[in-house]
């Protein structure tokens, strides 16, 4: 489902080939062949041969401009994988230290503007196709009372060389999945990748499970969650770049994972997240971006429409599923009452007929139940996933807007400083003049002369990522 409306420049064809599931896989190091454009926080300053160890990502985009000292052409190359250790808000970084990545960055600097990465990847790789089989199974309740939680077994079967074994499984709990998502989001979201959204927390659902209610609704809840987690993981690994992320690999492979405490709703990080969300919502209303790229405008409109449509569909399917379940319950009750009626009838033939009616109705009840489940898993959950995916896509668009805003602000600041400098030149205050000149230099370093690359984020990259999620 690539967007054929936009003519891809020739050097993008590699990317499409990759889509066919071909070899993306080398040792993670090889992937560093091509440099992300200069705006990544992992420094690619022309002057250094290695990353600045201390330039980490954080959610604040200001650092995007930290190292942008060189020209970036507007048809910027693919944004390649970013194996940085972005400080995941969740836990202390476990990702391999940058020193592992460092030596290669300098080498491939020249290749920054081409797509050599994928070329080389294809050549060097031994033909590792996308072959990975994930399943989330065996929900098991561990612990008791309010500290109880469900542990899920995550089994991976793969022949890819990316992994150490072919067949392995680990135990993970829900907050581990959320933690993984948090880390991926912090690393990739603001360079324009769409990170698949994790299933939602549900305090009501979990409390029922914790309390130990062994009834149908909590079983349904656990089953829904298990299925959602499986889909989430599959989507994450289908994304060629996310698959290579060390956090993802660690999640799938390592037997012990430090607890992601910051995913708890009531933790300080959770509250911070809520505050940020509110702030973002306000900002969204105030930022008015001049859309210069028609492609983005069209796509944004397209996604808005799709969002509305999918939400409607989802709502009607949910009500359908709900009614079917109700029908199943009512049919069962009618079956019981027919049986009782049959028992109290004197006339033998009628009595027998009514009893048989009761049996048939019980079977019908089971059928309705099955149909409701089918509707649920085939339509409702899938639609729900897509609705969430679209909000992830919208999130990326929003990031883009935020970046634009920051860029505008920086430019204005730069302007002001220049004016101040000009004024000072007139009034001839040498020391202040020098200070102003210094400030301007800093500012230029921050802003860079050109719009940030993420604004022109290769549309194919975006779409490809989205497609692989489906």
């Amino acid at each position, binding site marked *: 489902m690539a967007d054929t409306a936009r003519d891809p420049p020739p050097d993008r064809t590699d990317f499409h080939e990759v889509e066919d599931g071909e070899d993306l896989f080398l040792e993670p190091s090889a992937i560093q062949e091509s440099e992300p454009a200069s705006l990544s926080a992992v420094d690619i300053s022309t002057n250094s041969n290695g990353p600045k160890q201390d330039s980490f990502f954080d959610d604040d985009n200001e650092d995007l401009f930290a190292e942008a000292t060189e020209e970036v052409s507007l048809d910027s190359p693919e944004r390649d994988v970013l194996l940085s250790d972005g400080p995941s808000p969740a836990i202390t970084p476990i990702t391999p230290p940058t020193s592992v990545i460092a030596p290669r960055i300098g080498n491939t600097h020249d290749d920054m503007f081409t797509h050599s990465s994928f070329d080389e990847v294809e050549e060097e790789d031994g033909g590792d196709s996308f072959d990975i089989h994930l399943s989330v199974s065996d929900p098991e309740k561990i612990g008791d009372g309010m500290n109880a939680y469900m542990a899920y077994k995550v089994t991976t079967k793969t022949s890819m060389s990316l992994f150490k074994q072919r067949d392995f499984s680990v135990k993970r709990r829900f907050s581990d999945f959320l933690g993984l998502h948090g880390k991926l989001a912090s690393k990739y979201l603001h360079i324009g990748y769409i990170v698949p959204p994790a299933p939602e927390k549900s305090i009501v659902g979990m409390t029922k499970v914790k309390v130990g209610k062994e009834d149908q609704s909590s079983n349904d809840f656990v089953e829904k969650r298990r299925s959602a987690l499986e889909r989430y993981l599959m989507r994450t690994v289908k994304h060629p770049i996310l698959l290579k992320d060390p956090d993802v690999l660690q999640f799938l492979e390592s037997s012990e994972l430090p607890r992601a405490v910051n995913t708890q709703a009531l933790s300080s990080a959770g509250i911070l997240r809520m505050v940020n969300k509110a702030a973002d919502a306000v900002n969204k209303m105030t930022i008015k971006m001049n859309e210069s790229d028609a492609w983005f405008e069209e796509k944004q409109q397209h996604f808005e429409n799709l969002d509305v*449509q999918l939400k409607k*569909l989802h709502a*009607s399917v949910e009500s*359908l599923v709900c*009614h*079917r379940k*109700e*029908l199943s319950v*009512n049919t069962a009750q*009618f079956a019981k009452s027919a049986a009782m009626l049959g028992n109290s009838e004197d006339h033998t033939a009628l009595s027998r007929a009514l009893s048989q009616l009761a049996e048939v109705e019980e079977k019908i009840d089971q059928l309705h139940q099955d149909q409701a489940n089918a509707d649920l898993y085939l339509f409702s959950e899938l639609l729900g996933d897509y609705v969430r995916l679209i909000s992830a896509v919208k999130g990326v668009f929003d990031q883009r807007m935020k970046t634009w805003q920051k860029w505008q602000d920086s430019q204005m600041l730069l302007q002001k400083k220049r004016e101040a400098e000009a004024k000072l030149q007139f009034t001839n205050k040498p020391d202040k003049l020098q200070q102003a000149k210094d400030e301007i230099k800093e500012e230029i370093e921050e802003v860079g002369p050109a719009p940030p690359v993420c604004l022109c984020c290769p549309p194919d990259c975006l779409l490809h990522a989205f497609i692989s999620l489906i």
Partner: protein
Amino acid sequence: MMQEEVNEATSVLSIYGHTIKVTEVLQDGDTLTFIIVSQKLSGTGEYHVDRTYEDFEWLQQHLYAQEDVPGLQGVIFPPLPVRPQVNASAKVMKQLGFLGLGEWQPYCKALETFLRQVAAHSILRKNKAVEVFLTSTDPPGRQKLRRNIFNRLSQAVEGLRKEGHKDVDEFFHTERDHNLVLTGHTRTAAEKFLDVVLTEQKIAVACGHFAAALHICVENGEDPEKKAFSRVCVKLSQVFDSIKKNMTSIAVNDMNTLGLALDLGSRYLEAEKEMLFRRTCKLVELENARKNAERAKPVKKNAMEEVKKAAEGEFEQICKVAKQEIVQLNQERVEMLQKNLIQWCEQQLQTAKEGADAYNQHLQAFIAMA
């Protein structure tokens, strides 16, 4: 004027009872008017009359008040449905049950059944009120009659005391117990079945919404993916329209056959219960009369004996009529349930076959598209 005539004489019904039809219902604001058609015995045509619920009540009152009919209290009176209400409250809807569904079609059917049962009853059909009701162009008088023995209020008050009164007759003793159990179960079955039908209707509506929502997703455009997606949406929308149609049929079948049967069954059992209660009241009255006659002082003795004899005679009459009525009711009830169960199965089978065909076609179309 008409009322005196009715009370004096009985008459012969001039129409074929089984041809009575309630053909339509007209709504004018909050009042519902029913059109009733029946074929003349003479073969010269039909009677068309329009009646409101008050007219039906008038008829019922007259049936209760028929005088000089021995053992009238032993009759199981055909049950009249509850008063219909336009834009009914939830409570009234619950009372109406199946009869409140649709655009009053089940209700008309119930009224029709009532009239046919009345016209077929050997004692009741002779009441002139029936003839007047079915044939007179002017609506019968709509005033309330004087209080009669069937006043429900007094029944309710005495009911708690007398319902448990021990019976003298084995047959009636068994019948009373049986009736109690059966009435409860039939009413429950009718209620549960109503729940099923209502949910089926809700599903039909939800399918309709989903089909409509899918249509919104259809987009024009040259993009091949968009076209493919739109095509899928249109096809899926058709599938859900089929599901909606199928579900609606299922609900209608349920309503018209088993639903109405369970409803009628439970109302008739209630009518039987009321008759049994009247008989029990008479029994109590008789036992009191006997006691009074025994204890009476010589002065009053003769009078008391007369009262006792009258009570005995009445009671005997009631028991005779009641036995006949009970036997007939049980027979008819079983027949009605059997007939409706068979019809229900046949209709549902037909609907299921049609549904399966439609779904098969859709499945083939989807496979071809893939």
